[in-house]
């Protein structure tokens, strides 16, 4: 990176630094990873309105490859997937854990997929490793189909060096973490036949702390064998992977949020002319095991259309907050999580594109990126006071989430 760019960046930061707020030690911090263009390092930075910043960690990274990161449920540990090989997602990263309060950094695993990990609890983390790739051909054609992969889902506890393999998925196109429900991990799996959501119950030791214990199903009964799976560890019961429902409009779902036993996500509408916010009720584990909840009756339902904007839903207290576009620009809207009551409210409207990035459930704050023409900015929006304040990150940045209040000095 040129010195001129550095100076320019520095000047801009100085010029735009806002006067400090009156000290409010109870205010949360927004954790971000910042990286200048072409720079071989990234910084984990905690920011607050008023220009407050805390540099927590500097990481060597590949130029322009900002690590993927997820916060633990107690918002104290940060799990980082740092890519070590350019242009290589499959097993091209290493997984790190960083304690935000003590600033201790350690390596959990190497050769993991360069995708976001999943924080299972305060201490446990799960990740994917693609262990085989197989080219495929389209039937009756000399043209290629998408590669089939075999993916291992692995997990580790913070205090234990040994990772365990929870699950192995074979002959799929891809798999993602949708989130963690009260009853287990929700997976979004893409196969040559469909894109669907699955529930993987996990043992309590992987989901303890700040989360209700997960009860193991009493009678593990195989579900419809839509996937070639192999349970690899006692942490899950045999054939414990249970299909919840198909994604409503094919493999175009994204922006998953799991809250309790509800899954929210964005996807294309059925006419593929825009985006919509969908939700899926995840049945209790016992009902799934006993198959009292018929597979066929479960389906993700459209909650509201969001125009051209993918909704990027977030949970703030007891409300669902999401983005939506209309003829005046884009809006941040909310509605009660109890979907049977309450109207949609518009909280904020603006020109340009909005992307909701993170929410602080307890303090009713959200972090939003706004792009308009060539400019982009990071906003901290307090939904209680209806104030939006601009934060000043470096060029590339990833917003991880809000830290535990008082955990950062």
């Amino acid at each position, binding site marked *: 990176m040129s010195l001129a760019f550095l100076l320019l960046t520095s000047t801009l930061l100085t010029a735009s630094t806002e*006067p400090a707020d009156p000290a409010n030690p109870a205010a949360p911090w927004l954790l971000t990873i910042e990286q200048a263009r072409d720079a071989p390092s990234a910084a984990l930075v905690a920011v607050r309105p008023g220009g407050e910043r805390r540099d927590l960690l500097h990481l060597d990274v590949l130029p*322009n490859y900002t690590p993927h990161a997820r916060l633990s449920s107690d918002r104290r540990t940060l799990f980082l997937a740092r890519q070590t090989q350019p*242009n290589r997602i499959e097993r091209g990263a290493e997984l790190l854990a960083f304690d935000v309060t003590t600033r201790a950094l350690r390596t959990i695993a190497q050769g993991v997929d360069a995708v976001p990990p999943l924080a299972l609890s305060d201490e446990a983390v799960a990740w994917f490793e693609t262990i085989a790739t197989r080219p495929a051909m389209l039937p009756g054609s000399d043209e290629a189909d998408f590669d089939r992969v075999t993916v291992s889902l692995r997990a580790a506890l913070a205090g234990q060096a040994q990772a365990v393999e929870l699950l192995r998925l074979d002959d799929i196109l891809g798999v993602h973490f949708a989130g963690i429900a009260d009853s287990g991990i929700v997976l979004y799996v893409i*196969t*040559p036949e469909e*894109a669907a959501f699955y529930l993987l119950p996990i043992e309590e030791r992987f989901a303890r702390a700040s989360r209700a214990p997960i009860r193991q199903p009493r009678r593990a009964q195989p579900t419809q064998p839509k996937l070639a799976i192999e349970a690899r560890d006692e942490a899950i019961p045999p054939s414990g992977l249970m299909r919840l429902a198909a994604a409503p409009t094919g493999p175009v779902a994204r922006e998953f949020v799991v809250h309790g036993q509800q899954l929210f996500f964005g996807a294309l509408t059925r006419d593929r002319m825009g985006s919509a916010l969908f939700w899926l009720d995840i049945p209790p584990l016992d009902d799934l095991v006993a198959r009292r909840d018929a597979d066929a009756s479960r389906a993700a339902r459209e909650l*509201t259309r969001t125009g051209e904007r993918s909704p990027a839903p977030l949970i703030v207290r007891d409300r669902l907050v999401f983005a939506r576009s209309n003829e005046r620009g884009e809006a941040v809207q909310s509605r009660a999580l109890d979907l049977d009551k309450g109207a949609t409210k*518009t909280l904020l409207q603006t020109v340009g594109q909005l992307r909701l990035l993170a929410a602080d459930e307890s303090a009713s704050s959200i972090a939003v990126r706004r792009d308009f023409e060539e400019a982009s900015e990071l906003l901290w929006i307090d939904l209680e006071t209806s104030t939006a304040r601009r934060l000043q990150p470096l060029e590339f940045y990833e917003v991880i989430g809000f830290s535990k209040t008082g955990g950062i000095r």
Partner: protein
Amino acid sequence: MNARLLSAALVGASTLVWILFLLLLVPVPPAHAACSSSTGCRVQPVYGRAPCDDEVPGLIAPVCQNNFGASNGPTIATIKTGTDGSTRITASMPCLLFKSMVFVESSWQMFCASSCGSQGLTLIGGGCGYGYSQITSGMRASDLANNTSTNFDVNRVANSATYNLATGLQFMVDKWNGRAAIGTRDPDIIEHWYYAAWAYNSFSWVNNPNNPNYPAGRKPFYCEGGLSRANYPYQEAVWGYMRCPPSRSGKAMWTGAPISYPKTSEICATSGCAPGALSNPLPNHKDPCQKGASGEVYDPDAIVDSDGDGTPDSEDCAPQNAAIRPGATERCNALDDDCDGWIDEGTTLCPASFDCIQGQCVAQDVPDAGNPDEADAGDLIVVVPDTGTPEPAPDTGAPFEEPACLWLFHCPDGYLCQSGRCIQDPVVNPDPPDAGEPENAMLPAGVWIVESSGCGCQSDSASSAPWAGLPCLLMGLGLLCSKRRARPGRV
């Protein structure tokens, strides 16, 4: 000092000078082991002269035009063309695409030299990727053990810049021939190479643009507002660099072009997720190097103005609509005619006593004394359109307690409803904020809180009325709202 000691010191110094001189004569390979690790790879790295950046276009041009000489590269298959792929022609690929792709692969590096023009070992990346094109297939030690056959010379991939690039072309042509058609499957059109570029890295879900790891609505990689590389599939990194080229020593490495993207809703959007044919991405671009043009860099004059309105597509918010362009007159039509990011802005779009509401000039209504709960046919209630499912009655639970002002129309002209209070709009009222109002508490220009699905507007009659503490009466009475006139500034 003792003379003997002095003599010994002189001899020692002389010897040291000689040793240094001899060291200069012997070529010492630069230490770039990290750039060239051949562990598990088939071919050992070799020394070669690292070309400088300004030499690379001259190396790439004959290769992408398939004019590198039969002895300088592997055999290149003919390339499919036409929607059904039944016709085959001599292969070539757009040079702009090839430059960008080679940059994504190797940062235009063939040898790991400390500086261009000097000697260095072959760049061997992760997975045994060799040189400019990062050729990996057949280049692992296991490929040798398994007698994996290749249709190129593995040693020349490691030692010859041109051969390495030509092998990259061979792979791209193979990828092109093995994938479904995009548009008319014309190899001169850069956009038609989307599948091939995808497959050059991995024709798998990880590079699917609908993969949820890549945010929706992301701007082109490496361009203004773009995200870090981890937010893009491989081929979009190539696309990003084509549009916004990287710079070295303050100089762009090539001339960028706004290459279009296919519609992601067409890609693997079926339940079977098959990589089927895609429609023609518009506007599309040809690279003049295929046509024997003298310049091998992208010709900026070739930038397309699809609708012929005099504004290049890259600057036109509606490249397929000649009536919409920067500088056009804004009209009341629910469109952004002048490409300024605003729809139907201004107060002169409609005749007097008319307001522009959702693309139509509608006569202003007069407050009536009718049923306050119902808006009559003439009432102009501007609401944020809700295209979603009908929603039940509004709730009033925490944390969204009703503030003193709830909507913008509770406040007079030039004020915003913020934090439950009417405050001066910093855009309409450029005066500094009140001393008691910290600057950082102001709403960023261009953002406004409306806090409701109700009017995003203000009452015509409210400007002269006392507004402090005004309850949400106007809306409740179904009173008219006119279009909000305050136009937030750009940030």
